Structures are given as C-alpha cells and as structure tokens.
C-alpha cells in the first residue's frame, strides 16, 4: 500500500467522520433542543388493511445516443397478516433519447392520467429520467389504490411524499386529497434520507444515536421539526411531514417516514406500522413494503429474459449482430472476460 493511496483512503474516511463526529448526539441535542419526551413509544397494533406500492426500473440497453429502460409498478394489500390482493402493471418499455426531451414521457403520462404532463422530461440525465418514468406508473398505482382501498386503510409508498418532477405534483396532490377524503392514512417510507442538520450532519444517525444513548426502547417515533434541518429543495413539492421511527426493538436502523401534512392520527398510524414490522426476516421494516418490492423487482433473470426477447425482435426487424454491437455493445463486457 503506497503512502499516497493510504493518505487518500484516510482523507475519505476523515471527511465522512467529520459529518458524524464522536459527539454527534451531544451536538444534535444542543442544536435541535431534542428531549427524551419528544420520542413517542409505539404499541404495535393490528395493522388492518395495509397497501404498499413500489416501482422498479432497469436499463436494458444503452448506447451513446439513447437508452432503453423497462419500468413497472406493483401493489400488494394485506388485511392484518393475510395478503388479500397483489397486482402489477405490465412491463413498459421506455426510450430515453435521442433529443433533449423525452418522447415517451407524455405518452406514458397520458396513458396513466388521461392528459399530457404539465412539463416535459429532459433526457440529459438518463438515470433520473428512468426514475421519473417509473414514478409515473408508481403514482398511477398509488392513486388507483387510494380510490380502491377501504376507509381506514393504510397506503404505504416506498419513498418520500415529495415529487421529483413538477408534472407529478398535481398527481400527488390528488392522491393526498383522496386519502384525506376517504380516511386513508398515507405514508411515504424511506430507507435512506438526504436530510441533514447543522451544516451537513445526517439526520437519521443523530436521532437513532440519541435514542440509544438515552436507552429509549423501540418501537418509537419522533416528529422532526423542519426548522432544525439545513434546507429543503423545492419545498412546494413536499406533501408530507417528516418523522423518524424505529419500528422494532431489533431493528438495525431507523426509517424516515412522511405522513401527510396535518395528519392527526400519527400515533395510530405508527402503532399499526409497528404491528406489521415484526417480520422475522427484516424486523423494523413494514412487511407489505417488502412484499411489494419482491413483487415488482425486475430480477436479473427477468432482465435476461427480456433482453433475450428484445434481441430476437431486433434481429427480426433487420438489425444484425454487428450493428447491435456497435450500438449497444459495451467494451466493459469484453474487459470482464479477462
């Protein structure tokens, strides 16, 4: 190991350490004024009807000028511990590029919501564009389920209650309205959070560390005061209020949970979430979301099959292997052989 390399590793670790100092909890307590009494204990309750929605996208082919992705979304609904319904959207192929604006976004959006999007989707960031195309079907499933679930149900979304594209804002607004009208609890559950405080300290380790230092026994939840956070991008697209929660005594990490602004029954929702987060495989994570993920995920096997089908059709369409290689071939595949 050279001194130069060793120094680079040390510096990288040091920069991360700077965001999570040894006295993180102490600093957080001082900066936020957090108290033990801010942590509310959960009593796991029968979860009743819980629906979880998740989406998946995979890049099938990428060339310099365009990329072909496949997207789909799924929902799975449980009544207490029994799954009552599970459904999935068809696999939808979307092309990102060529050109500045995405051609498939308005088609997909109109297909889902019956009208064109308010704002076009840029192709410049392929990964982001694929994510927004996936969000489109995911929001459609969420809206569909908000209309279909029974009163008092919980509707869980994998991710925040904040849109990443302006065109989705009216959709999420409609979903929030429908849920409020129908007495459905809407929760956006994130495994990670970009939220920071005090100029770059991550929120989740600070809250979890505080609970550990003060021996606060899980399950618990904590409502985050937006004032303690560094900043919020596009606050106009934010529909939820932020909570941090640890839903099981054996949970290894906390979750960021967003509930609709003005939610009055946060306590009840958290109790029900804790009630469906005792699955032995991933304690502390609401099982319906795991099930939605397992339903929707485009596994390697699926992707291989789709890619094979696609190759067949490209050959039928007259694109020979050499042209295909020129377009979509990746030298990294060749490199990997050596």
């Amino acid at each position: 190991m050279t001194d130069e390399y060793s120094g680079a590793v040390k510096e990288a670790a040091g920069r991360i350490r700077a965001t999570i100092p040894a006295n993180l909890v102490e600093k957080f307590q001082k900066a936020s004024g957090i108290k033990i009494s801010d942590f509310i204990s959960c009593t796991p309750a029968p979860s009743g009807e819980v629906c979880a929605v998740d989406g998946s996208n995979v890049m099938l082919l990428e060339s310099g000028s365009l990329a072909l992705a496949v997207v789909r979304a799924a929902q799975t609904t449980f009544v207490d511990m029994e799954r009552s319904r599970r459904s999935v959207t068809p696999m939808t192929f979307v092309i990102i590029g060529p050109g500045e604006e995405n051609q498939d976004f308005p088609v997909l959006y109109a297909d889902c919501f019956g009208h064109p999007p308010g704002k076009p989707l840029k192709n410049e960031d392929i990964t982001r564009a694929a994510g927004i195309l996936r969000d489109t079907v995911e929001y459609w499933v969420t809206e569909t389920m908000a209309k279909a679930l029974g009163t008092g149900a919980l509707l869980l979304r994998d991710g925040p209650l904040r849109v990443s594209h302006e065109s989705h804002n009216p959709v999420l607004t409609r979903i929030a309205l429908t849920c409020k009208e129908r007495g459905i609890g809407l929760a956006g559950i994130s495994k990670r959070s970009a939220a920071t405080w005090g100029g770059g300290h991550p929120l989740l380790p600070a809250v979890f560390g505080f609970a550990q230092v003060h021996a606060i026994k899980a399950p618990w939840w904590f409502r985050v005061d937006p004032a303690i956070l560094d900043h919020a991008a596009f606050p106009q697209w934010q529909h939820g209020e932020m909570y941090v929660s640890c839903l099981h005594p054996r949970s290894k990490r906390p979750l960021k949970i967003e509930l609709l602004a003005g939610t009055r029954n946060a306590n009840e929702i958290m109790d029900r979430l804790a009630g469906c987060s005792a699955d032995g495989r991933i304690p502390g994570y609401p099982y319906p979301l795991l099930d939605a993920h397992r339903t929707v995920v485009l596994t390697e096997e699926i992707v291989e099959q789709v890619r094979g089908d696609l190759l067949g059709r490209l050959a039928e369409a007259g694109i020979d292997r050499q042209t295909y290689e020129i377009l979509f071939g990746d030298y990294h595949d060749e490199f990997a052989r050596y």
Partner: protein
Amino acid sequence: MMNLRDTETTDNAKYRLIGRSVLSYRFIAPHSETLYIGDIKKIVDKTKGATFFAKITDLSHDSNFADPKWDTRAYTGQFYGLGEDVFITVDAVPLGFVDSKGKFHKARTIPSKFSTVEDPAAEDFRFLTGQMGEIEVGLMRSGQDVIKDVAVRIPAKVLPQHMGIFATTGMGKSNFMKTFCASCMKVQKFGLLIVDPHGEYVSGGKSSTGDPTKGLVHYTNGKDGLAIFTIRSEADRKKYAMNRLWLEYDDFRISDLSILHDLSAPQYDIVEAFSRASGSEIIRFFEDVDPEIFPIKDAAAFGIKEGSPAWLIRNSMGGPVRVIKRQIENLTKGNAAFFRQKGSAIPEIIKNLHENRVVLIDIPDMGERSELFVLSVITRMIMDRHRSEARGFGIDEKQEASHQVLITIEEAQRVLASGGSSTQIFRECAMEGRKFGVGLCVITQQPKNVDAKVLAQINTFVVMGLGDRGDREIIMGSAKQDLSKMEIEIQTLDRGEAIISTIGIPFPVSTRIHRYEDYIATLNAESKKNIREGLKSNFS
C-alpha cells in the same frame, strides 16, 4: 390506458411436478399442508395422456428466500407472507404409469414438466385389480389413510417362490398370518402348513399387546379349507372337528437330530452312518444298545453281523454313542404325545395340503424342539413326495408340480441362519423347493441373521416395521423391487401396516392389514355355498 393485473389468485407453483429424473419426482406443497410419508399421489400428464403414480418418500421444509438462514434469525417468531415463499418440498418415488389405453407400465419415462399432482381416487387404481392375486391380506394404504375398494391380494402362483414376513414383536405378525390363513382357507389355491407350538392359531388367545384374539376355527365359513392336527384331548378335538396328530418312528430320520441339537463331528459321523436306516430301526437300536461296548475292536466276538446298525458305527467311541442314545431317548419320550411306533398322520396331512387346505399342526405346550422336530419331519416328507412326483413326469410332460404347498417357519433364523449345514432340509426347500411346488413362508424378526442366499430366493416380501437399520438394509438389498427409497416408510410403519413387495404386483404396495377378527366377521357374513350346489335336482 395503464392497467393493474392481479397476480397469483391461485398459486400454481404448488402441486406441479418439478422433479428432474425418471426415478425421482419432486413437487412443492403449501407449508401448512399435512402430508405423510407413503402417501400415493397421481401425476396427471395431459400432454402425454398418461397418469403417473408416485409414493412420497421424504418431506422437507424449503423456501424461496436467498438468505439460507432466514428461519434461524432469532429476532422474532413472527413471519408474514409465508403462503407462497415457504413451502414443503416433497420427494416421491415413481410407481409406474397408466397410458391412455389404461395399461400399466413401469416408470421408464418421465412426466411432462409441471404436470399436476393430485390425490388419487379408488377408481384410479382399477388397473391394479387385474394385477392383484387371490390371497387378500388388507387394503392399500396411502400415507395415513387406506384407499377403500383397493384390496391387496398376493398372487397365489408366486408363493411357491417363497415368502418372507419381516417384523419385530408387536407389529401385527400373528394377525397377518391369521388373516393370510383365512384368505387361503377361502380361496384354497395351495396347501399351507403351520406348526403352532403356542396353541394360538386354533382358537385364539391373547395378542402381544394383551388383547383377546380369535383363532382359525372361528372362521366358520372357511372351515372346509382348514385341517387341524392336534395333540389336544378328544373332547377338544370333537368340539372343533380336529384330527389327532401322530408321527410314527419311521417318519423319523436320524438327520433330524442335527436340527434339534448341535452335533459334534463324531456324533455327526454316527448320523451319517445311519442316513439310510429307517426311523424305527434306529430308535430300536439305540433303545437296546450299550454305548460302553464302543469302539468295537472285534465285531465277530460280540456277535455283530456285518451291515448291522452296530457294525455301521463300530469305530465310534462310547461317548458320542451315549449322547445320540440320550438324544433319541429324549426325542421319543419328550414327544410321546404324538410320536409312536406305528401309525402316522403325515399321509393325511399331505393329502389335506394337496387338497389346498390350511393344515395347522397344533402342539400346545410342546416347546421349541418339538416344533422343529415336527416341522423338519413333515417338510422332509413333503419334499420327498414332491420330488418323487416330479421324477414321475415323462420327458415331454410339462415339468410343473401339480401340488403347491407353502410351509411356514416361524423364527426362521433358527433354521436358516448362514453357515449351518445341520438344517439341510430347510435349505433344500429354500433353494430348490419351488421346482417341486414347495415354498417356504419365512417369518423372522431378524432378517440379517437369515442366510442371504435364502433371502435371495424369496420373491414375496411382507415388511412390517423393522427398527434395526441392519435388518432394513438386508431387506432392501434382497427384495426384487426397489425398496431403498422407502426406508423412512419402513422405519415409520405402524402396527398392522406392511409394505408388500412381490413379483406379481407391479410395485411395492403399502398395506393396512385387515384386523383378523373384523376380516373373518366379514367373511362369515358372506352367504355360504349352497350345500345342494352341483347336485342334480331331478331324476332325469
């Protein structure tokens, strides 16, 4: 318009064939399903138009989760969504298949992938009815249940090729034998000889579990198929129409001693010397002889003629002669209840056997030596008779025995253990009896102590639960059908259950043996043959 399709309203991943080879089937079942080792399943192959049958040989828990330790992570006992992803993997062994024309074949092909696995109904086994034989012993079993209307019947024609009954104590061996006897009495396809030193076959007694049992005489509808030879009192004999058992001295051969006693080499020399002498001659000689005169240096001085019994053993020492004398005295005195100078029931016994009756030799309280003595004498005489009948066939005549007799040997390891030459008659019977229509019904708790060469001659195996692994391995290695994948089932057989493997039935059949008392109650309830049947009813 975007749409949302429901998935898995019914989980079709379960109960469909996913096995990979001709000899090993596999499918999965819901984790909550109750399945048993030995359950028979039907695999419907719609592509080939065939129905395959398979027997469950193993059950194991399995899941679709990538984490192999998902179920041992100790955080909580609660798991959601076990329905699809956690299941029971079922391994099954093929039994064979029925083609679109209803013909049964051995499993030489493989069902199409994802053929459905179903529970068979009684009519699915219709093909078996034609292949089953005549001697009913029970009902076909599938796991814990019996398949009603599918009676297990052993083919009579394979029984001269010997039958083995293997069971530890308390597994229902006696019940099986009595049920077997009742069926033999009913169909009368061959003669069956049983020597019973405990007196339990005649009128019952108590089972090894202490329950009262009935005997063969209680099967009144089948009494025509039964002949009992007994040493019981006349009053008892009259009550159940039993015959008096007698063996005469000439029925005895000196070689019978070797079955009853462990003979030394000098004693065996004496036995060899008298191998051609008649029983009465031997007994008379040893009654009178003074062992102290042996060895005889000068035969003429003692007035011993050349060729006389004493001359034959003139070189023997006094000790061995004394031992043989004592053994013969014990034999005659100890068996005086049925062993006399003149007058034998053996011709009558053989006649009844040849008339396809069950012949029961009932010698209560007589002990093991008496049992073996009677058995060896009768066996030898049956073999002699059948041999001479076979010799009587002309060169162009069909060399097939006209009479079929099955001789039962309880605790067969006593006379069929490996290495013993003293039990020659039973060995001969095992090795060449089937040529003359004489089969052995070998009953033992310890098959591993029976000569492997004898086991190799047995074509019908009735396995009724063997706790000893060595015993199971011997049986699995000797049976004509592959029992190796049924080891767990053999190990878990309950009282009254058996696996029957015979060359007459296409696969090893799990059987619930009829309870004898219930079986004869059914048989007795059947209408009797009209006594006038076959008689002329007019004067024309």
